[in-house]
């Protein structure tokens, strides 16, 4: 799974730490999600999408299903 979190963070000028504080997780968790090393729960994915003013579909790219 690929994500566009980094791209959206840059759009809103947010650091990993800023986003982590907003969604209530550790900075490393955002890093691992961005790298595709950790699949977040639906709840966390929703929170991140809400903070980045987008949808889960836009943020996460499920390559296996394309």
């Amino acid at each position: 799974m690929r994500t566009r979190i980094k791209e959206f963070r840059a759009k809103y000028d947010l650091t990993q730490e800023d986003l982590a504080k907003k969604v209530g997780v550790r900075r490393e968790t955002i890093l691992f999600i961005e790298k595709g090393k950790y699949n977040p729960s639906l709840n966390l994915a929703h929170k991140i999408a809400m903070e980045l003013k987008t949808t889960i579909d836009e943020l996460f790219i499920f390559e296996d299903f394309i």
Partner: protein
Amino acid sequence: MKEKMTIVLGLGIVILVIITLGFYLIANETIEFFEIASILIIVVLVSSSSYIIWDRVKNLKAGLPTQDERVKIAGYKAGYYGFIAAIWSAVGSNLGHIMLFDQELRGGLVTAAVVLISGLVFMGSFLYFSRKG
């Protein structure tokens, strides 16, 4: 508040373990090989616990949570490996001692082996899973 309590409690335990280890080393005039191995494992456990506590304090100071869903999952995985290690060390320590020295290991030493080995496996796998992602 709960996070701070956990950190304070963890620090207290680490300090108590260090003090106990200090007393044990002062009281013992001669230390055997097995005791050195146990002490080394305890030192590794104390150092890794201190690292985890320091990491939590760092996150707390930065206004971030000390635990999140990823760390909790890492804890569950590490707990599973620790449990498997506990079972195998209970069987393996006694069996190994019989094979090597042709006599059974005392009950207290089996308990010590189980606690130390499962603790070491738990700590190692927790650090691995929380760093690896």
